[in-house]
């Protein structure tokens, strides 16, 4: 653990500018465009009446959180996919191999940072940025004074509940996706840039052929189930309650959100009780082991 933290700090030093841009540019652009662009809302939203400002604010916060999170998650996946070979480009892999750090720590630290900490930080930044976005949106559509008299207790509780729900579901989602993510990392280690191609073609063609020739749909079923399970870990949705109830003017939905988030997370936990989950973890562990082996062998390449 004592070496994991400095290795995680290395990720900060290497990627901090990209991360700041990743969060700053979308938020800055949103604020700019919403400040000077044209904003239109649909008839249904207008029908919300007095609840409109609160719903606009909550929607802005949720939207900002989702956008920043998705950008962070996507960029993290891109970075992680090239994890095994990233230090080969500037040949600094030789430097990293000369410091007293194990091969498994060298892989674990960036995986923790990019798959957990960065998306988690994106959720927090996205939500906080969402408050600024909500001010612009509410000011432009209703008036600045309306923003100051919003039912902030309800909105803050709702937005924090949503953020906490996503934060709690994030590790589960990453565990569900870990077989696919680590498989990409492994294939990229073995086949460089062809890793993605081999994974995509392999899964696509493999699924098709297995189903067509052998009547075995399990590959397609498993890979799609992993992705669906990851999504359900973040928002299960089976509990209902996220739909704005017109009769209650939408405020009730916001008030119900903390309870819904808790129940939804419980459902995500329950979804772990399937043979697929330990199987997925076992497969991911196998990929991780092969990555460590690859690094050991890669380190010993003729110099």
């Amino acid at each position, binding site marked *: 653990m004592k070496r994991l933290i*400095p290795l995680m700090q290395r990720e900060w030093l290497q990627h901090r500018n990209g991360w700041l841009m990743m969060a700053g540019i979308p938020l800055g652009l949103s604020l700019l465009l919403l400040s000077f662009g044209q904003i239109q809302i649909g008839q249904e939203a207008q029908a919300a009446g007095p609840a409109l400002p609160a719903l606009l604010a909550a929607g802005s916060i949720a939207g900002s959180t989702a956008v920043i999170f998705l950008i962070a998650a996507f960029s993290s996946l891109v970075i992680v996919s090239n994890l095994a070979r990233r230090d080969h480009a*500037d040949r600094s892999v030789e430097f990293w191999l000369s*410091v007293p750090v*194990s091969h498994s720590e060298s892989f674990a630290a960036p995986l923790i940072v990019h798959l957990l900490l960065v998306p988690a930080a994106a959720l927090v930044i996205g939500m906080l940025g969402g408050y600024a976005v909500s001010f612009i949106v509410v000011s432009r559509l209703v008036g600045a004074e309306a923003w100051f008299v919003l039912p902030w207790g309800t909105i803050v509780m709702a937005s924090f509940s949503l953020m906490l729900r996503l934060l709690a579901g994030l590790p589960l989602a990453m565990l569900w996706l870990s077989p696919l993510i680590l498989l990409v990392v492994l294939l990229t280690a073995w086949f460089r840039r062809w890793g993605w191609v081999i994974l995509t073609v392999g899964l696509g063609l493999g699924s098709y052929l297995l189903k067509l020739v052998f009547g075995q749909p399990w590959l397609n079923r498993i890979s799609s189930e992993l992705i669906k399970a990851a999504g359900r870990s973040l928002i299960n949705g089976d509990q209902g309650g996220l739909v704005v109830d017109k009769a209650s003017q939408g405020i009730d939905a916001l008030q119900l959100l903390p309870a819904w988030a808790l129940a939804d997370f419980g459902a995500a936990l329950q979804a772990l009780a399937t043979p697929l989950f330990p199987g997925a973890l076992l497969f991911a562990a196998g990929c991780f082991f092969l990555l460590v082996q690859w690094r050991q062998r890669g380190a010993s390449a003729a*110099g």
Partner: protein
Amino acid sequence: MNAADIQHPQATDQLVEARDLTVRYGAKRAVDGVSFSIPKGRVVGLLGHNGAGKSTLMKALVGLAPTEGALSVLGLDPVKDRVTLLESACYIPDVATLPRWARVGELIRMMSSLHPHFSAERAAALLQRTSVSPRDKVKNLSKGMVVQAHLALIAAIDAKLMILDEPTLGLDVLSRKAFYEMLIDEWCDGERSVLISTHQVEEIESLLSDVLMLNEGKLVLSISLEDMDQRFVALSHDASVAQEMAAAHPLLKYRVGPGPNGNAALFDGPPPASVEALGRRVRPSLVDLFVALTRKPELDRTQF
């Protein structure tokens, strides 16, 4: 065999012990059955042509290459105990490159966190002797400056063994001299040992206490420089006695100076008395010995 098969170094006073050590890359034996040891307080030169197996041997010593045979470094198995070993043995690979995205000061801070025996103050002090600033980004430094920064980082480690694979590649002569002076005057303390490979043999000859020579993966010489002076004899001689010298089958015939008197013959052991009378004893240089022991036989025939 492994490190456990070799007597503990505290008992033998050896920092490195290799016995029948082999490193394979597929079918190729990059290092082929070498046996040697490095005691405390030695500065050992590892010499060999390109592809002789020097880098591979050094990688094996720090656990970055799987080995056959027995190898013990600081009493540890380099592959199994790589992390522990690297806490007490520092290593600069031949393609040493620092991460381009980092500032030198950030690398110092990172090394402080990662390496239990790293001194940030020492690294900063060593950097002050160079033209590199802690605020410099590696990507903005010249190749020589990157090497200077890397050497400062490595020399700031309080290690028992330093393994340097072509450490001064890309450095100008002044920087090379400054580094070697620092290495001998400040880093080597009689307890620590250095294993250093370089093609600039003449520059480090005076620093070395021992030499290992590799040829095609095989160890052709492992000797201290004192023993080398006693074992190998060079005779400078006049061109008129060249045939007599050649008849005595020297290891190498070469020139030590201009003119008809500038010929020399290198012998492994004392030359025959009849031949010795024809020449004058001179000290063979490491380069001459290296050439004598590592050149290919087919080249021998064409050179004489």
